[in-house]
């Protein structure tokens, strides 16, 4: 028996990755946050409230659905979809925002801030803020405000203030910078809900723990429905929260292979992608050490992906560790391949996936035929595709 996986250490390190690389003004707030998180994550009242919210508000458990027709067509492994698209607000993001919002409430914070790329995390944050009656400010790159107009409107309806960020590349990383600047300025009353497993410790561990409900359910459901563990897990990786949520409860089950799928954009060889693990290198950004897309001088490179939610130059530090140790494998899928995945699931199963999730679908299409019919793949369907109708129509030359 090998030792049980037990990462990170008490200062948030996953081997050389993770940590707390922030300006001094944020050291005290993240210490305070970590203390609260450590206290409540084992507190029966907190867990009971969280579980009730996940059941009655989010709609959990989400089903594990056997994609029978698609599996047969592919002619290899049997594909099961973890239906995070059926959650309230339409993606896995809400698992985390519900958890962090409860923490914010316990800590007596009255104001919530968040960054968002595709807008899914912004919507999930605005949603829980509305429910708890908390002020909510969402930072969003000006470019993303343009390409995700529908989600901007949703956030506004929910009562959030959406601040377009005009600095840098005007996308997700710049929204994160701006949210950090807000937090430094308003630390006393403000709780920063980060949307993925990035940021300084304790965020990568905390967001993972809130998202791990995905993998815990999937494991139980697979055992109940099939009678054994799956052979492989597949999930897309932007910052890496839906992937780590699925992977984490399986890390010690070494027979289960894990594949994280990054966005290859126009193709890794073109340089226009956002595949930090596949094509980047270690560095420090947004509070942690991890794989990054940076040039030789250490400046962060602009990323590209058809899906705004994967358009981020970093990745959660735990994925960097899982890559280096070989426990998980990281692969990439181009924009064109993702679109094929999108259409395959839509036409074969009547499920319209988010463009982010379509990357996982596209990789499953490659993987399944290399496996036997007796084998099982669980693919994380992290979100639904309604938000992407405009992008896809435009890409395919259709006027709505």
């Amino acid at each position: 028996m090998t030792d049980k996986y037990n990462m990170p250490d008490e200062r948030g390190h996953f081997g050389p990755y993770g940590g707390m690389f922030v300006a001094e003004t944020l050291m005290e707030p993240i210490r305070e946050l970590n203390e609260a998180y450590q206290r409540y994550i084992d507190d029966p009242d907190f867990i009971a409230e969280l579980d009730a919210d996940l059941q009655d508000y989010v709609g959990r458990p989400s089903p594990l659905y056997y994609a029978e027709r698609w599996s047969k067509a592919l002619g290899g492994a049997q594909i099961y979809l973890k239906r995070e698209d059926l959650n309230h607000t339409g993606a896995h993001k809400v698992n985390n925002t519900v958890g962090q919002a409860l923490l914010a409430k316990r800590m007596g914070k009255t104001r919530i801030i968040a960054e968002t790329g595709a807008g899914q995390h912004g919507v999930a944050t605005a949603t829980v803020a509305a429910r708890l009656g908390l002020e909510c400010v969402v930072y969003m790159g000006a470019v993303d405000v343009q390409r995700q107009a529908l989600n901007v409107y949703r956030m506004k309806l929910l009562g959030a203030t959406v601040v377009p960020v005009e600095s840098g590349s005007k996308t997700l990383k710049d929204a994160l910078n701006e949210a950090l600047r807000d937090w430094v300025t308003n630390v006393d009353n403000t709780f920063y809900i980060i949307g993925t497993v990035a940021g300084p410790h304790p965020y990568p561990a905390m967001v993972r723990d809130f998202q791990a409900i995905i993998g815990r359910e999937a494991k139980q459901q697979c055992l109940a429905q099939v009678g054994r563990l799956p052979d492989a897990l597949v999930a897309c990786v932007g910052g890496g929260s839906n992937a780590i949520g699925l992977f984490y409860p399986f890390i010690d089950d070494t027979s289960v292979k894990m594949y994280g799928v990054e966005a290859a954009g126009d193709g890794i060889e073109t340089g226009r992608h956002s595949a930090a693990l596949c094509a980047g290198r270690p560095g420090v950004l947004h509070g942690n050490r991890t794989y990054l897309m940076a040039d030789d001088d250490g400046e962060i490179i602009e990323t590209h992906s058809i899906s705004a939610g994967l358009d981020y130059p970093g990745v959660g530090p735990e994925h960097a560790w899982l890559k280096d140790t070989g426990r998980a494998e990281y692969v990439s899928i181009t924009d064109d391949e993702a679109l094929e995945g999108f259409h395959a699931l839509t036409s074969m199963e009547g499920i319209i996936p988010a463009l982010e999730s379509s990357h996982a679908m596209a990789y499953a299409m490659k993987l399944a035929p290399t496996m036997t019919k007796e084998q099982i793949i669980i693919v994380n369907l992290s979100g639904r595709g309604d938000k992407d109708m405009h992008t896809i129509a435009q890409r395919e030359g259709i006027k709505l």
Partner: protein
Amino acid sequence: MSRLAAKFAELKQANRKALIPFITVGDPNPEFTVPMLHAMVAAGADILELGVPFSDPMADGPVIQRASERALAHKMSLRKVLALAEEFRQTDKKTPLVLMGYLNPVEMLGYQAFADAAHKADIDGVLTVDLPPEEAAECVELLKEKGIDQIFLLAPNSTEGRVKKMDAVGSGYIYYVSLKGVTGAGHLNTADVEAKLAEIRKNTSLPVGVGFGVKDAQTAKTVAAIADGVVVGSALISKIEENLANPQKAKDEIVELLTSMRLAMDS
């Protein structure tokens, strides 16, 4: 004794406070920087903070963010900053130089290569905004071997324990950030700063420079009365931004502002 320690000792002897201007290297263009640095020394600067531009300056307000963007548009980089520092040193062997920036450019170079290059450029101190002492052990060690001081920030919400930590790990001076916020923000509250400095001094004998919110001769004078050094950044860079079409005018206005600060601090 390091150049920084010697400078603070000399100032103490003369009963004066350090005037520490910050500019982003390469803003508005690389040719501007070295003459500007010399002019700032002539105007009474004691220590120079050289801002290393970074694509994602998380702790900076809009003024320094835009300075970074202008410098990066000229392909400024950590290596080029060091080259310009070396150029400055050819005619000024005395004024301490402190690099101020973010960690990722240093990570890409590698800590050892960075320490070597900084030593070669005759840099005296390094202040890395997103490198708290908890993560700094390796970097501090390598810089120390080269006689370079690692300078740390303290903030209004830093606890007593953290002051002790900075005292143990840091050297040169401590940079006290006068307010919760980003560079260029708001007004500093003198009474708050004074109270916090008294607390800090209980746990360190390092000199303390105060920055964030120093805008003019009056604020410089106020801060000089309670701190060992006065750091001014955004107010200088605003002059560059207001005169992008006329860098000479920017330089003159920066000299004028620093001169007025020096006068006010010494009177």
